[in-house]
């Protein structure tokens, strides 16, 4: 009895999650897709390192951290662009995107230097 209640709850939970997420705006969903892509690339790199070994370590580190870095920056962009966030309502989305580009530039400059 309890088990079916929990499974029913879990089903309801996933259903509500899916419906709530489908209601988010399109541009936020694009950013979410980008984040997912970056994390997936990072995981692929970690799996590759587990198979092949970690030499040269600086290349591995810069590869993984560049993926994680772009994911983090994309999350920050999503936070700033999301209209539901009261704290950022006077921030024009163009400014948020410009900051995002600048931070990415710095990140990738460092990555290119560290890649070896």
């Amino acid at each position, binding site marked *: 009895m309890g088990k079916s209640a929990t499974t029913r*709850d*879990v089903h*309801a*939970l996933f259903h*509500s*999650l899916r419906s*709530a*997420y489908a209601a*988010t705006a399109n541009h936020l969903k694009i950013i979410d897709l980008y984040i997912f892509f970056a994390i997936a690339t990072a995981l692929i790199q970690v799996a590759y390192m587990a198979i092949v070994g970690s030499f040269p*370590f*600086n290349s591995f*580190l*810069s590869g993984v*951290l560049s993926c*994680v*870095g772009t994911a*983090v*920056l994309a*999350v*920050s*962009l999503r*936070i*700033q662009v999301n209209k*539901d*966030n009261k*704290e*950022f309502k006077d*921030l024009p989305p163009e400014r*948020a995107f410009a*900051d*995002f580009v*600048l*931070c990415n530039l*710095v*990140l990738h400059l*460092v*990555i290119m*230097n*560290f890649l070896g």
Partner: protein
Amino acid sequence: MAAQETSQSAIFRHAFGNVLSFTVLLLIGVMAFSIRLFSVIKYESVIHEFDPYFNYRVTQFLTKSGVYDFWNWFDDRTWYPLGRVIGGTVYPGLTLTAGTLWRILNSINIPLSVETVCVFTAPVFSAFASWATYLLTKEIKGAGAGLTAAALLAMVPSYISRSVAGSYDNEAVAIFALIFTFYLYIKTLNTGSLFYATLNAIAYFYMVCSWGGYTFIINLIPMHVLLCIVTGRYSPRLYIAYAPLVVLGTLLAALVPVVGFNAVMTSEHFASFLVFIIIHVVALVYYIKGILTPQMFKVAVTLVVSVGMVLCFAVLAVLIALVASSPTKGWSGRSLSLLDPTYASKYIPIIASVSEHQPPTWPSYFMDINVLAFLVPAGIIACFLPLSDASSFAVLYIVTSVYFSGVMVRLMLVLAPAACIMSGIALSEAFDVFTRSIKFHLVGTTQNPQENAGDATKVTQNDVKSEKSEDTVKERSSRKSKKKDKENIEKPSLVSRVEKRLLVLPLETSVMAVFLVVLLGAFYVVHCVWAAAEAYSAPSIVLTSRSHDGLHVFDDFREAYAWLSHNTEVDDKVASWWDYGYQTTAMANRTVIVDNNTWNNTHIATVGTALSSPEKAAWDIFNSLDVKYVLVVFGGLVGYPSDDINKFLWMVRIGGGVFPHIKEPDYLRDGQYRIDSQATPTMLNCLMYKLSYYRFVETDGRGYDKVRNTEIGKKHFKLNHFEEVFTTHHWMVRIYKLKSPRNRIRGKTKRSKSQKSGTSKRSTRKKNPWQ
């Protein structure tokens, strides 16, 4: 009309305030620069101490050969025969900064020498540091607190001690980088702008380049983030302030060769990764909470908690196993000695022997931060009303820096900015209340009529309270005003919470209080100027003393190094205790065996063993290292207390730590260290004793040592394997040359000598790791 006029007057007041702030900041910068010039005025424009000479030599190399040669420099004139990879073991921030400054100045045709730029780098950056303090405190409390904190930092003796003109050391630039990084972090936290987050990462990179103390930043910021999360202050701005910093900061830290992969592999950085994971989990939780209904969220929580706990424990177990497998749990020796203050004295005598690494005494707190020591608690209270993210950071900063300054006296330097910020906040809040009271009493009745009605009720309440405060004023007016400050701040806070309006005090109290607080500031200024002029301006390479017949100048060190550079071959090796290594390579330009970097304990122990052994054994060790000259510092003739005989026990301990035949009790008589007639024979025969006191009896006939205050034990002896080549004017530095071995050994002693040499060869094989 009235509104327009008030807005115009508001604009004027604003503009006037801005101009005034700018002027005050400029004056603060000038003061920070000038107060550090006492050493240049009293002595000369010379580089101080020991470590700055190494930085100076590296900067010289940088300006001569360019950045790429500096980055790849392998120095073979130190740690002979090992050499030292300068590019990979030095924090390049300071040298690159000074080199860039020199380059820029020369390109605009201001031909300053490298030495001048090096000497004055520290005062210039202390001016920048006080401006950075203004910016940081402005983010925490406001412009008034900012100006006060900047003024306090410009003068605080603890910072002056490490940044006088001539003290060309990492801290000169690093403290500026520290405060500036904290400012950018708080600014990002307050505004939530990714632009400032980028700048924060770049400033953190500059800090990593400059000083090993950057681990303080990368542990304090995660601690603060964790504090904010735990106290329920999580916000998207916190995420933007922290997450990009971790990723970019780790990458940038790994770029600096001296840090390299330590940025991801040592325990000093693990806190940042842990909090990185935690903040992502928290962000996800808040996001899901935002898009779900409350019942659904409860279901999600129970589900996740049950599944996630198992995963979490598994990951944690793996991590703990990884970390516990290394003997020091992944921490470096210096960091461990910070967390466990007794660690260094048990395991790493070299770290324990440095005087800067000892815990401070109570008087040193009052010497170094003076009045701020008891303004800090008032500042902490002021930070709590109201508590914001920025002020919680300031409180965390002061608490951690007080702990670390209690462990190591050198870290009083990290306490200084925190103390200045807190005291600035406290003083500014106090002045706020007093001047508001004065203004209310003098002008309040003619201005806003609405406020008057409210104030009337307040005034009656105040009369009751003012009687109490007047009594307390009468009781304590003779004492320091700090208690009054605290009382006044606490009383307004209580009443303001009840009434939610501004409190005013009676006129006489306020005027008296303002006067007393200004007097307090005056005492602080007098102390700071005295400390800068008398206590912290000595260059250590030139000593002075006053006697009845005027001022004596002891320039023996430079005399000795100049002699070395003019009278020896370029490739001659000089052995001395590691304190003098940097100065010897920089000023005498000779190869040394060990220097202040102290990275190789065995090598230092070899030199220590040689200095503790009898003459022949010492000669063998030095000969195996190709040493030509031995340099000792001796203060017995003039009373210079930091000479090698006083440091000798550390040589014994460090040598004995690696070569067990050197035992410390052999050099002590009844547990006491003596060099007079009661000294042990091992002591009287060791090389250090002989090199220090050779021919000493010729100075005054009795051999009276002015530092140890006794006559020496062995007065007339000859040196068989060393010859004295130079002694400076006040006998402070003595240089000896190794005598070459005899060409032939006289017949009668040949057999016994060969037997002796056989046994000595066997024992030297044990002593000499190089043969």
